[in-house]
């Protein structure tokens, strides 16, 4: 044990599109911390009930089927955008929704371990840009979590692997296909040294896209066969989504599955569509084709041939799909390896990173070097004869540079007697600044008057592992230096906005935590009720009624008995 009782714990959090979870390093192992419901994964879902009280986690996820309008899932995909959702009377940004999930996780950890969380490491997809990282940082601040380090999910997975295989020496490719994102990282593990060499990804390709393609195809089939458009209503499409998700999971273990949508239309009809794996794999072929691009990009950046790869590590729940193993085999000519539980590897790696940051003795021999996922640079103007082309992107610190790193570039004045230069700082890979992400702006004044091009100005970028960018601009002739520090906190959302969001969160009414198991059980049962038919449905209805009656008695023992009975029934139906 290296935890100090008074110091609290340092945890790793995988803030996922579908699920979130926390892990802590204890006794030389990364342990997943279960939530109050005893589950290791907490769904990243937020919902409000009829009384305007906020629900987070399993209870909220179950309401996605029964109350799609009051429930938000998949908000991670909109991190860093201005999109808002209206939940009850509140209007929420993705940052606030993520903050709700984060603070739920923090509370679970603190209840489970009985110690405060002093620091957390949160993971993001490697392909998250600065905007999305800022938004994630803002979410942590709103949730009141002390987060200094945001690491890439594949890096975390590699850390978990390196931690578990300290002796190994291998060239790895980590494929992380999560609910909403696809990341590829190329890395080398040597004796506990983990070197990330390149990474690439697709920020909008994940398990959810596979479901969506399936939904669209099923919607068309149902439209043709039953003349019912399941996309017409939010309720129906929520049911179709749940049905497709189940079928997708079914296809992991079997060659055939059925998409069953119940309670359609006024007659509460049940629609069934048989699908088989080959057919569905054809639907998914375009998605699989999209997966090749980042793989190629990452290998190219690393300067590796495909044949140099020793092992392909699969991470993320969506890699369980057989089509993904086929894809891996076709690219790398070897089967992918699921050495760690695909849903948990990232959180485990984040816990390792948290321990690394705290100089924990358990990870003494582990060293990790990570890279800049994007190029950083400034705008400049090119002069070609008498033509001037503005808004060009000059990359100063290129993607793939091992961090922390400093790189510099020398610019000159453009006009005769120019006294001032304005630099705009961008992140991205496009040759034109307007296609990249702007992350800051500053001006250097007091340049001595001189003919154009005769005042060299050196711009030095220092980028560290916490995402802190220090820009040092020196006018060589005067030796005057201008320093600008851009860090993640408080950008995107301003400090005031974060404070406002925190205040808004504090004023939210939550379901009392002790009642959470009851609510979750009830919501799960009701969601199941909406999707099954016949005698089981009637039986389940009875049980739900009985449990509601138990709740009204407010007798703790009776309620816990009733809940157990209800969950046992739900479990049985869900698994049969």
């Amino acid at each position, binding site marked *: 044990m290296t935890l100090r009782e008074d110091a609290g714990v340092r945890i790793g959090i995988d803030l996922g599109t579908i699920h979130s979870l926390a892990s802590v390093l204890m006794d030389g192992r990364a342990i997943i911390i279960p939530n109050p419901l005893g589950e290791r994964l907490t769904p990243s879902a937020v919902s409000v009930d009829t009384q305007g009280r906020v629900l987070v986690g399993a209870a909220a996820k179950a309401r996605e089927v029964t109350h799609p309008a009051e429930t938000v899932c998949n908000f991670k995909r909109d991190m860093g955008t201005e999109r808002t959702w209206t939940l009850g009377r509140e209007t929420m940004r993705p940052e606030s929704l993520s903050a709700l999930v984060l603070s739920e996780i923090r509370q679970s950890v603190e209840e489970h371990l009985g110690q405060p969380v002093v620091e957390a490491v949160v993971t993001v997809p490697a392909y998250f840009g600065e905007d999305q990282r800022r938004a994630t940082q803002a979410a942590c601040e709103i949730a009141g979590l002390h987060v200094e380090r945001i690491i890439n999910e594949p890096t975390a997975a590699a850390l978990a692997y390196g931690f578990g295989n300290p002796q190994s020496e291998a060239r790895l490719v980590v494929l992380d296909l999560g609910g909403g994102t696809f990341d590829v990282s190329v890395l080398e593990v040597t004796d506990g040294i983990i070197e990330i060499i390149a990474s690439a990804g697709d920020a909008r390709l994940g398990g959810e896209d596979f479901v969506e393609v399936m939904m669209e195809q099923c919607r068309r089939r149902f439209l043709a066969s039953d003349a019912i458009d399941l996309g017409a209503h939010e309720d129906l499409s929520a049911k179709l989504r749940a049905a497709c998700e189940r079928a997708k999971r079914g296809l992991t273990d079997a060659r055939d599955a059925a998409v069953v949508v119940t309670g359609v239309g006024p007659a509460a009809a049940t629609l069934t569509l048989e699908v088989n794996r080959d057919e569905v794999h054809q639907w998914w072929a375009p998605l699989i084709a999209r997966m090749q691009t980042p793989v190629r990009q990452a290998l190219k950046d690393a300067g590796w041939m495909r044949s140099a790869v020793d092992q392909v590590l699969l991470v993320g729940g969506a890699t369980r799909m057989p089509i993904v193993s086929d894809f891996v085999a076709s690219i790398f000519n070897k089967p992918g390896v699921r050495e760690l539980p695909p849903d948990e590897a990232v959180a485990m790696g984040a816990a390792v990173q948290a321990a690394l940051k705290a100089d924990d003795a358990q990870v003494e021999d582990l*060293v990790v070097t990570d890279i800049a996922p994007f190029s950083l640079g400034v705008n400049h103007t090119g002069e070609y004869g008498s033509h001037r082309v503005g808004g060009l992107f000059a990359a100063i610190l290129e993607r793939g540079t091992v961090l*922390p790193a400093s790189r510099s570039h020398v610019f000159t004045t453009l006009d005769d007697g120019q006294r001032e230069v304005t630099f705009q700082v961008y992140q991205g890979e496009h040759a034109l600044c307007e296609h990249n992400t702007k992350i800051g702006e500053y001006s250097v004044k007091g340049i001595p008057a001189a003919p154009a091009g005769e005042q060299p100005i050196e711009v030095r970028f220092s980028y560290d592992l916490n995402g802190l960018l220090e820009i040092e601009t020196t006018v060589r002739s005067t030796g005057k230096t201008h320093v600008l520090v851009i860090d993640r906190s408080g950008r995107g959302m301003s400090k005031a906005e974060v404070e406002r969001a925190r205040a808004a969160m504090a004023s939210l009414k939550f379901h009392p935590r002790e009642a959470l198991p009851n609510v979750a059980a009830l919501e799960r049962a009701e969601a199941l009720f909406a999707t099954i038919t016949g005698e089981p449905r009637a039986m389940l209805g009875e049980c739900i009624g009985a449990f509601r009656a138990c709740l009204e008695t407010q007798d703790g023992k009776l309620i816990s008995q009733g*809940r157990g009975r209800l969950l046992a029934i739900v479990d049985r139906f869900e698994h049969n």
Partner: protein
Amino acid sequence: MDRLTAFELLGLSPGADAKAIKRAYHKRLKTTKPDRDPEGFKRLRAAFEVATSDAPALEEPAAEWSSPRLTTQRTLNAVAVHHALDEGRFAEAHATVMDTRWADALLDDPGGAYAEATRRTGIATILDHRPAYEAVAAVYPDVFRPNDPELQLLLGISREWQRLLQASSVPPEVRAFVAKCVIVDEASRLSLARGLVRWYWRDRPSAMAAVVGLLEDYPAVASFLYQQVRAFDEYVPSTGPIPLQRQPTPSARIRFATLWTPLIVVAAALVISAISSGPIVDRIVGALVLAVGLLFLLGHPANSSQVHAGYLASCLAHDEPPEVAARRVRLCRRLRRALGENIALDFGFRVGRLARLGPASAPVEDAAR
């Protein structure tokens, strides 16, 4: 940084080969972690980059990517086996494994992979039917060693035992065996508990028997599982034949049968003999009553697993260290074999009581926390 400085910083002479450069870099990396010493790391990294700058970067020609796929038949075979295993088509996987093509498909370690595949399919085949299990066990006696760490690891990774525990077609002995195999980590332990609870839901006595079976070798795991099962009982009290929770001393009913019934029978015989007149009638009636009592005893529904479950329950309910409980169950079992079930049960309780009064022996193990 020039090359000379770079090599100096790495502690090498210029012209060292790529391997030496990498080794030197790694060695210094251990003491110059990017987290701890950013400036030192920047210098080290710069030196490494300068030293390796003349190494050619490889890039696969674009044509390679668009050309017909690289995948060989070997890989396809390997992937087919993976799929077959994932889908539970074990017979098929096994057939592929047996096929010589499999050895060809194993890229690095044919021996090891073959053994693993055999184990996996061997274990999984149990799912289907008992003859297969027996056949496999006969052919591969080494496959089914409960304490084999490799097997445990394999079961832990594949989570196959969870399927085994949940499937209703699997014979109870096999499930007991599987439960015995699984002592891996906390994650496996938790999901083992989940599987066990499901089994318990269907068939309480044999699930409890499996827990008791674990008690001897893995007291901490057994007591953890027992607590899980007990928690389930708390939630679902009205279903199933043994409400352990409501009966913290489950022996009461059985003890009544074993201890008091003979006494009542003897008392009844005495009363009858006192009120009856003829000595022959007296004897006959007395014998009859005794016979009825004995029959009642022999036909008592308490079977061994129930007895053990009850015994385990009472030990754990009294917060005894699982090791002590394990010792008692062993003793109780030996007695049962020697004396017959019901007597052993009662005797076991008495011995248990005595043992509790005796000196504390083994160090108390923290129960599965």
